[in-house]
Every structure is written in C-alpha cells, then in structure tokens.
C-alpha cells in the first residue's frame, strides 16, 4: 500500500508548547471546519483525523502524494492566524511508523500529562468517530486507529500504567479534601458542561460531596446534568450568587474570555466570611483570571497545576513506561508493516 508511506502527524501538545500557546492553538468548531475545507482543497490529503483536546491539537493525515509536513504546517498556521515561524519551534511532526507509534502512545495514555490516564482514550475514540461520521477516514486511518485502541487495552491489562489516582478529576478531589476535609458539607458549582468537568462532578459525588449545582449557557444542558446528579441548575446570569454560595467551583467552558474575573471572586469572598473557595479551572483558554489566586483564602488550580501534582504522585507509573512502550512499539511497527509491506521504519522528522 503506497499511500501508507505518507502518513503525517502534525501538532502541538503539552510537551512541546506552553499553556499560553496551547490556548491559541485550540481549534474552535469554526476553525476546525475551515481547516477541513483547506485540507480538502489541497486535493493531496486522502484521509485525515483531527484530535483536538485541552492539551493537544494533532492532525493525522494520509496522502497518496509525498506532501511535506511543511505544507500541512502552513495550512494549519493560516487557519490559526499564526506565523509559521512562531509555531514551528513548538510543533511536533512524525511520519509513517513514527506517527503510528505516537498515536498508540497517545491512546494508551503514555503521552498524557498524567501518564496512564484514561480520559485520552475516550477523546481519541471521539475524534475517530467524528472523522468517521464526516467520512474523512479511509483504510489506513481506520486500521491505525482501531489497532491503537486495541493496543491501549493490552497495555492497561499487561502493565501497571493505569494504577493509582492520577486523573484530573481525582487529583482535584483529593485537593478538595485537603481544603475542606469531608466533602459532605461542601457545595459544588460546575460551570460549563465539559467532559472533564462532568467526570470531576462524578468524582466529587463519589466522595459524598453536598449539593452540586450546574450553570451553563445552555440552560437545558444544565438542567439535564442537574437531573443526572440529583443537583440543581443555576441560570448562567446568576453566576455571582452561585460563586458566593459554593465551596468548590469546577469550570470548564469553551468561552474565549475568563468566566470568573478577579472582581467577581473578590466580591464572592466578601460574602463568604471565613470559608475558603476552591476554584478548579479545567478550561482552555482558562475560565478563571489568574489574579484570583492572589486573593486570600482562594485556591485556584488549572490544568497544568493538577497535572503537575499528579506527576508527583505517579512516579511509580513511570517505571512501567518502558514496558508499555515496548509493547506498543512492536505492535505499531507490525501495524505499519501490514499497511506497507516491505517498507522500512522512518525515523521521526
């Protein structure tokens, strides 16, 4: 299969780019559509799948022609409104078997900020499902992605890469317990309806957290979540009231500007007497102005903070990385060999 020789990966993630740049790289639905149109317009991309999560933007593309990664990079930068020279130092590119290995590692959680976390596998599956629905994946990416899911399961079964509490949600809950102790008296406000926010709400509920209130720009979604968690819905316009009455705030909206500003948090703190406020910012771009962390008795943790703490807690998982990587690399190369018999492994660009 000749086409398989031209599998490209272009992207940026937490390893290659700082938080501020990743905020700019996040693809909105409009930008995603524009990028898809641009890829179709080139005529050189036969298949593609876009993985767009809070910590990574990665484009997997298959071309019958030897299009260069620089060409994809130029299109990507044009859509994002970035100068290629600004983005290039933070971009990572892989080709052919190296791209397959990378996808396998991403799906297995080896490339995640919190090694071994499971949320990424669901996100990869979602990206693949979206690409399938859009009809942008073909025989190469179908096989590569399905093999990646299978390999991820094997790695979890045969190594200890997934042991211990390392997800954003569980780390956030353990921090909440260091602030409030038992959570049964704590009120939780969930802003937005992101997947991670929902998982965090579930984790808090599992620790017997008190009332959980949902606020969303789409009131119906907030009410739906409130029913699911036996909580309550709060009109988005009444966020100030919710902030003053809540102990733990989980924010995960897609808003381009901060949802919680310093004056809002400051005003809420004046109504809260001595009770601390724990703000968990799971959004990218950030939902909570960084200055809020300077207010007395306010604790603000964003994705990077939670990830760093988890890293400290999961040092033992790292011992499993080599074993997991050996399992994945062998399977990835085997997958590539079947797609492209007789080809040799290319090293990463």
């Amino acid at each position: 299969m000749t086409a398989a020789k031209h599998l490209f990966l272009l992207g940026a993630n937490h390893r290659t780019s700082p938080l501020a740049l990743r905020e700019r790289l996040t693809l909105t639905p409009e930008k995603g559509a524009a990028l898809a149109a641009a890829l179709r317009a080139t005529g050189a991309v036969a298949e593609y799948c876009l993985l767009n999560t809070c910590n990574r933007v990665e484009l997997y593309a298959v071309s019958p022609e030897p299009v260069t990664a620089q060409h994809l990079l130029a299109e990507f930068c044009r859509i994002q409104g970035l100068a290629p020279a600004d983005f290039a130092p933070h971009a990572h590119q892989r080709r052919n078997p190296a791209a397959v290995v990378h996808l396998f590692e991403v799906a297995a959680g080896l490339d995640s900020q919190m090694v071994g976390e499971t949320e990424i596998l669901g996100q990869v599956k979602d990206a693949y499902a979206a690409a399938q629905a859009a009809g942008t994946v073909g025989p190469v990416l179908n096989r590569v992605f399905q093999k990646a899911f299978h390999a991820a399961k094997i790695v979890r079964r045969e190594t200890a890469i997934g042991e211990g509490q390392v997800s954003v949600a569980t780390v956030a809950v353990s921090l909440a317990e260091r602030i409030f102790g038992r959570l049964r008296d704590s009120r939780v406000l969930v802003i937005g309806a992101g997947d991670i926010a929902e998982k965090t709400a579930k984790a808090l509920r599992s620790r017997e957290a008190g009332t959980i209130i949902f606020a969303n720009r789409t009131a119906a979604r907030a009410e739906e979540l409130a029913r699911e968690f036996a909580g309550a819905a709060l009109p988005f316009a009444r966020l100030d009231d919710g902030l003053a009455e809540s102990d733990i705030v989980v924010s995960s909206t897609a808003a381009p500007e901060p949802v919680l500003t310093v004056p809002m948090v400051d005003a809420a703190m004046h109504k809260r007497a001595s009770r601390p406020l724990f703000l968990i910012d799971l959004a990218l771009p950030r939902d909570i102005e960084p200055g809020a962390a300077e207010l007395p008795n306010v604790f603000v943790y964003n994705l990077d903070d939670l990830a760093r703490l988890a890293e400290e807690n999961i040092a033992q998982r790292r011992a499993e990385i080599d074993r997991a990587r050996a399992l994945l690399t062998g399977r990835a190369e085997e997958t590539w060999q079947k797609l492209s018999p007789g080809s040799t492994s290319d090293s990463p660009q």
Partner: protein
Amino acid sequence: MIFGPIPAAPDLHRAAPGPTLVPMDLPFFTDRWAIACGTGFYASGLLYGCWSVLHRRRHSRIASYTFMLVGWLLQTYGLYLRGQATHSCPTGNKFELVQFVAWSCTLLYLAVGPAFRTSLLGFFSSGMAVLLGVVSLAIPAWDSASRTRPFGDDPVVAIHASLALFSYGVFALLALTSLMFLLQHRNLRQKRSGGAFALLPSIVELDHMNLRLLGCGVVLLAIALGIAGLHWRGHPDAVAPAKLIVTVTVWLCYAFALGQRLLQRWVAQRFAWLCLALFLAPLLSLGIVSSPRRPDLPAPLPAVRAP
C-alpha cells in the same frame, strides 16, 4: 530528684511534711526519672513522625498515639509524685510550670487527636512536648531545691492555678494547630503535594479547631482570673501587681483574637499567624506567673530539697 525529708515549719506557703516519694518497689524511679522517661517516649513519637515525613510514608496513628499515651502516663506519674510532696498542684517552680503546660497540651491531644482520620497532630504535639521537656530538664536552675506551694493551702486558689496553666496548655495546642494550618495552607497555595504533610488535617478542620481551642482557652483563663480576682479582693497583698497585669494582658490578647475571629476580621491565614504569635505571650509570662506573691513580702520557706 529524690524528695528528701521535709522540714516542718508553720508557714502556709510551705508544704506539709509527707513521706519520701519514691516507690518502694522502684527505688530508682524518681519523679524526675519518670518525667525524663516520659520525654523519651515523646521523643520516640517525634522520631517516628520524622521518619514518616522524610520517607513520605503514611504513619501508624496507633503507634504515634501509643508513644504519646505512655509518655503522658509517665509524665503524669512524675508530676503526681511532685504534687504529693507539696500536697498541691505541682506548679512550684519553672520546671513544674513548663511540665504542667506540656502535660495539659498532651492531654488535649490525647482527647481530640483521634477525631482526625489522617493527621500529624501527634507528630507536632510530641515535638512540643519534647521541646518543653528537654529544655526544662536541661536547665537545673528551673527546678530549684526551694519548691514552694505558691498558693498556700487555699484549694480555690489551687484551682485557679491549675485552670490557668491548663489554659496555657490549650494555647500551646492552639499554636501547634495554627502551625499545621499554615503548613497546609502554604502547600496548597504553592501548589505542592506536600509529601507526608499532605496528611495534615484539612484547613477548614484546622480552622474550626483553632476557633474551638481559642474559645476554650479564653473561657478557662477567664474562670481562672475570676477566681483569682475573688481571692485578690480578700488578700490584696497576695498577688504582685506585675503578675496581675501580665496575666490579664495575656487573657486580653487572646480575647482580642477571639473577638476578631468571631467578627470575621481576622480569618484563615491571618488568624493562624495571630494565634501562633500570641503563644509568645504565655511563654514569656511564665516567669512572672510563677511568682506567688508580692516580692516585697518575705519569701516562702523551702518545701522540699534535692538530696
């Protein structure tokens, strides 16, 4: 120290004669040895806590509690022997005052410590007990041969002394819980996992505990001062003005802190810093508090002598 024979003299401030307070079956186990052994057990608890912290291990609360309990029982026994010597609360010199404060603090830990699921309160309490124990044992001048019954034979005044010193023990524990609050708070603000210090109680629990301890200490000291005030009305020469001023000032400082906290003016970190800093007041006042009467009056006769 083995208590020697007690000379008889018709002085109200001197202890009544009593038996030599060395158990017949334990001839070498004197009051001072008991207190030193108690301090040794506190030190063992501290070392065990240090080992847990340094190795980032979750420590056994049962082991920590046992070290503290055995240490406290030995300390209680040593203070009991001393109390028997004077037939009063063992608060006759600085050594005994400091020991009594450490004893009170440890008693409170033993009472409230198990309420926390995972906490290093025992570690910090043992640290406090070791510090006070070692310092008081290491300064012979504090344990003067001339131990006195500072409050004569009046049991009401003895209650005053016990309550006042117990309130100092409460304030000592308050200083510890404030320190724990500040450590937990700093780790959370600086976004550190905190290692073994992550096992500290939550800051909300510590804040509640600080408030309860402060309220308890203020009330106890207020009762002690009330009793002293009643006694002072009948015996105006019995108390030195400096002692009166200092003890009332200590109470006012803590009452101010309590008022500020209840009015929500000093909360969280500022409140913890205030409670920690205020502990200097009772510490520095111990010397004056131990003075029993006006300095211009004749000093009491020695109650017991070291051999």
